[in-house]
């Protein structure tokens, strides 16, 4: 009986030891396998990422080694149409020496803003200071003044000045009082006396259109004031205004004053250098309106004035959009 109990106990202990050793070996094996799996996911995802160090070296690291940085939320990122594009100051330079009244600027502007009749935002005038001085062509747009009289007089805050330099009109706010037209010393604003007589076809853009003061892809609104808007819809696409790209003679330069750079579609030049070298000036500068449009005087003209007479039309009407 005593021997039998001893044998049973020995057998039990023997089995327990064997089981313990087997469990330890198995556990170690599983642990090794899982650690290997972890190592694979942590150290080698297989996906490579190009990064730039502060000293300008381009390196390639495994994307699993990269730790994302929590960026502070920028509350100013939401675009405000009344504030404009941040850190920009748009300017235009018009070189009178190059203009020969080809009127491509006006045609393009009319086409893209659905303008007809006398309401052209961009007009080209025949100028002659004296009888014995040579005549020249002078395109005019809204001057986008830094001290705009139109904004000061608007009773409903429909026309406003943005930080990026643009003066725009909110046609949904405009009550058609025309105070701004009276206040503007450059007479560039036009009034929509009637529904626009414009030929256009509705496209998907128009169907889903939500009005914005900087969106030009819609016809004008009867009973409100219109004017050149410096084509912010183009600028947002990193493109030049329609008049600049349409001009075959490189008359219009458009750019950013903060970057001191303007472009006429053919060349990019320093704004300060261009104005200094060609004696740039602003219209009625003494009024203190501080226009954003500069003119280069019509000296050393590159074109014959007579050529432009074929297109001259006294602004009784302007071309309908194509």
């Amino acid at each position, binding site marked *: 009986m005593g021997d039998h109990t001893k044998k049973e106990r020995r057998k039990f202990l023997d089995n327990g030891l064997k089981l313990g050793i087997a469990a*330890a070996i198995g*556990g*170690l094996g*599983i*642990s090794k396998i*899982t*650690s290997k799996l972890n190592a694979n996911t942590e150290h080698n995802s297989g996906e490579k*990422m*190009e*990064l*730039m*160090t*502060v*000293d*300008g*070296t*381009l*390196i*390639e*690291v*495994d994307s699993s*080694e*990269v*730790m*994302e*940085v929590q*960026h502070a939320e920028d509350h100013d990122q939401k675009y405000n149409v009344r504030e404009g594009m941040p850190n920009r100051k748009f300017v235009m330079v018009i070189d009178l020496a190059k203009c020969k009244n080809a009127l491509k600027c006006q045609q393009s502007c009319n086409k893209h803003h659905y303008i007809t009749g006398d309401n052209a935002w961009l007009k080209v005038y025949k100028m002659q200071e004296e009888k014995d001085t040579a005549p020249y062509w002078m395109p005019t747009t809204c001057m986008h003044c830094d001290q705009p009289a139109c904004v000061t007089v608007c009773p409903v805050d429909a026309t406003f000045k943005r930080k990026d330099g643009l003066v725009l009109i909110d046609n949904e706010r405009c009550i058609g009082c025309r105070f701004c037209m009276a206040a503007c010393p450059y007479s560039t604003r036009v009034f929509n006396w009637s529904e626009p007589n414009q030929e256009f076809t509705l496209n998907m853009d128009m169907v889903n259109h939500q009005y914005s003061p900087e969106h030009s892809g819609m016809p004008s609104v009867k009973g409100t004031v219109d004017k050149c808007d410096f084509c912010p819809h183009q600028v947002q696409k*990193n493109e030049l205004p329609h008049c600049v790209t349409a001009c075959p003679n490189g008359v219009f330069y458009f750019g950013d004053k903060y970057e001191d750079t303007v472009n006429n579609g053919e060349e990019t030049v320093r704004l300060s250098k261009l104005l200094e070298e060609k004696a740039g000036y602003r219209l009625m500068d003494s009024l203190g309106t501080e226009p954003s449009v500069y003119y280069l005087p019509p000296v050393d003209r590159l074109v014959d004035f007579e050529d432009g007479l074929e297109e001259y039309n006294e602004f009784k009407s302007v071309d309908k959009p194509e």
Partner: protein
Amino acid sequence: MPFLGFNQPSPKEAEILQEEEYETLLKPDGTTVKVKVSTLKNSKVLKKNISNTSLLGWLGKKI
């Protein structure tokens, strides 16, 4: 034993991990990330001292 924290890093190793130095690097989308300095040392160098033009090109900006 394997199931009782055998595979965990020792306290000394954990301390080293916490003190690991990181460097801030630029991603091509213009955001920044952090990478361990030790990883950087072992990383593959694609190009050194790149020019401004190359940098803007890498960032996908028009010049």
